[in-house]
């Protein structure tokens, strides 16, 4: 059964159908408006409710991220302060534990200097007792008596001799004092050196104190939880995330090389052609397991050496137990490295026999003769060295791994908040679109049935003119809906 009234003219059929449907559409105008308005409201409100919920979820998540971030920042600052204190303690223990001896030495030097100084004091020679006798004799009048002159002459000569002796004595005494002063110089230098060393130590302590002050200031800022600190910590976490991710990628490259080094010879241990689910060869799985065990042991080694802090239980072990665990992890790592060396040799052997066999299969097999010698041992030696070193090198991946994990928490948390907010925005936008779509649909409906509406308006205005009332606008019917709209 066709919808066309005039089968030969679809356009005219459509127009006729429209004209037939027009009274029904006019009659159904209010219910259709109500349905469209209700649907638009329902959709809009649901979407806005979802947006509101997402916004609250984003706020909660952001607050939680902030708490975690600040806690991490506090932890880092605390560790930095602890490290500085340890450094200061070491400095004090190293330098100040010798301080009593240093002080004693300094006092000795000072005492010695004081003694020398005392010795250097110029003591005038005591006046001889006979000076008064000389003075008395000098008071005798020169009467021209020859005896008296002779006596005075003798006394004068004796005095000259005595004077010469006293002067010589004085000079010797001065020379001795100069020698003592000469010995004084090294002690003075020693005192100077000692005081310089003390000054240097004090300067080191002062620098450490300045660093501690800076860290304490940072700690206080983190503790205050300011917006700036949050941004700084987030930015720092982002940088750490990128750098540690890069280093981890390099580490994975090393693990990949290690994997291919041992995957082939593993087939000699676990059997070639054995497959586990998913098309994975048993030898490859075994090689992967060995590498994962090596990585785990490396992680434990770093943890017991306190380079990383991923496992609090290991970190809190007593020193004796921790040391035992460290040696256990190191021993396993060492054994696995040894196994890898053996596998490197095995790999070389397998490849060599395989190559030899394939050379034998080819027609020109005898033509290609490869020189034997120490040069041929280089690849196997290289493989052995790589096999031994890579497990230990992989152990250090634990350090960037720790940074990556902690930074990833912040970065992914921030990313999740952004994603939730974006989704909330999209829902809010969808709510607005739904509300406006409802309005547009109602207007479109009215536009389709414009003819009956015009007639209605004319009739109403005629009646209102007759009754002296203002005609009610058709569009006023949509007012209640607009009022109930929650667009903001």
């Amino acid at each position: 059964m066709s919808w066309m009234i005039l089968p030969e003219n679809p356009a005219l059929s459509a127009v006729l159908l429209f004209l037939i449907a027009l009274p029904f559409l006019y009659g159904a105008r209010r219910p259709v408006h109500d349905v469209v308005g209700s649907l638009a409201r329902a959709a809009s409100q649901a979407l806005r409710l979802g947006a509101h919920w997402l916004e609250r979820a984003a706020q909660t998540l952001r607050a939680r991220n902030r708490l975690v971030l600040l806690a991490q920042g506090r932890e880092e600052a605390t560790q930095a302060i602890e490290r500085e204190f340890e450094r200061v303690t070491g400095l004090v223990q190293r330098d100040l534990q010798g301080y009593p001896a240093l002080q004693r030495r300094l006092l000795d030097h000072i005492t010695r200097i004081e003694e020398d100084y005392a010795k250097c004091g110029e003591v005038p020679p005591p006046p001889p007792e006979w000076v008064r006798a000389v003075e008395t004799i000098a008071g005798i009048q020169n009467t021209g008596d020859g005896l008296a002159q002779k006596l005075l002459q003798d006394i004068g000569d004796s005095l000259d001799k005595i004077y010469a002796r006293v002067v010589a004595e004085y000079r010797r005494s001065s020379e001795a004092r100069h020698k003592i002063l000469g010995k004084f110089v090294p002690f003075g230098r020693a005192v100077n050196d000692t005081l310089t060393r003390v000054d240097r130590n004090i300067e080191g302590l002062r620098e450490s104190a300045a660093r501690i002050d800076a860290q304490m200031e940072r700690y206080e800022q983190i503790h205050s939880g300011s917006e700036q600190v949050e941004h700084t910590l987030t930015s720092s976490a982002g940088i750490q995330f990128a750098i540690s991710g890069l280093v981890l990628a390099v580490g994975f490259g090393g693990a990949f090389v290690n994997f291919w080094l041992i995957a082939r010879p593993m087939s000699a241990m676990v059997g070639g052609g054995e497959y586990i689910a998913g098309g994975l060869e048993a030898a490859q799985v075994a090689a992967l397991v060995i590498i994962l065990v090596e990585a785990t042991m490396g992680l434990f080694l770093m943890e017991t050496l306190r380079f990383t802090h991923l496992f609090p239980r290991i970190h809190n072990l007593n020193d004796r137990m921790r040391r035992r665990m460290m040696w256990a992890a190191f021993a396993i790592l060492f054994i696995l490295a040894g196994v890898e060396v053996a596998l490197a040799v095995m790999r070389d052997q397998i490849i060599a026999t395989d190559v030899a066999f394939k050379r034998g299969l080819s027609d020109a097999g005898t033509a290609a003769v490869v020189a034997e010698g120490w040069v041929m041992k280089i690849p196997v030696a290289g493989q052995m060295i790589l096999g031994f070193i890579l497990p230990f090198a992989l152990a250090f991946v634990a350090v960037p791994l720790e940074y990556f994990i902690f930074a990833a928490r912040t970065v992914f948390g921030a990313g999740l908040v952004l994603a939730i907010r974006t989704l909330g925005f999209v829902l809010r936008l969808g709510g607005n679109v739904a509300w406006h779509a409802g309005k547009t649909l109602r207007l479109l409906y009215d536009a389709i049935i414009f003819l009956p509406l015009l007639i209605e308006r004319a009739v109403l205005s005629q009646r209102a003119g007759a009754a002296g009332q203002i005609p009610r606008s058709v569009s006023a019917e949509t007012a209640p809906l607009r009022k109930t709209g929650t667009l903001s």
Partner: protein
Amino acid sequence: MSRVVRLTFVLVALIGLAACGDKQAHQRAVYLLVDTSGTYAGELDKAQRVINYLLGTLNPGDTLAVARVKSRSFSEKDIVAKTTFAKDPLQANNQKHAFKAKMALLKEAAKAGSAYTDITGGMLQAAEFLNETGAGRKTILIFSDMQEELDQKTIRDIPMNLTGIRVVALNVTKLNTDNVDPRRYSGRIEFWEKRVREAGASEWRVINDIERLERVFGG
């Protein structure tokens, strides 16, 4: 608690089954039929190259068998050499050496020649052998001109079961009669293709340039 134990057992069993299933699915079994009839005996050197290629390509755990096609080939006696390579690569290498040495027997056997060419019997024997290996990928390589000739007593007009086996015809040489009427050659190929496909083979291919064997085993 017992539920946990049971669940664990079920999981372990499932993993084991998956592992076994996978192991079989990855194993390869190749059965090479070499035509030693008078018209084809001169092509044995090429057959040797095919065998060398297979020895160089197959992995530990795979199976290889070489059999000759003669007047009546539905017999284990026609298998010149067969082996399943060990899981240990070094041991597998030794097996390959031994297999290669056995190939001298093929030349000896070919010297006798055969009056007729029982390709169908050879394929029946090959299918039986390959199905026994339980390998995941089974291949019959037929190194022949695909001209079957049977004596009057031999009955080979019977249905074959080649389900899950791919069949590759290698070095299908043109006979003198084919040169007279090329339709005979294409008709022969079409006949075997139809027969093989009706028998349930997963694939049918013809490779005349044996330098392109990697098309069969490369993928």
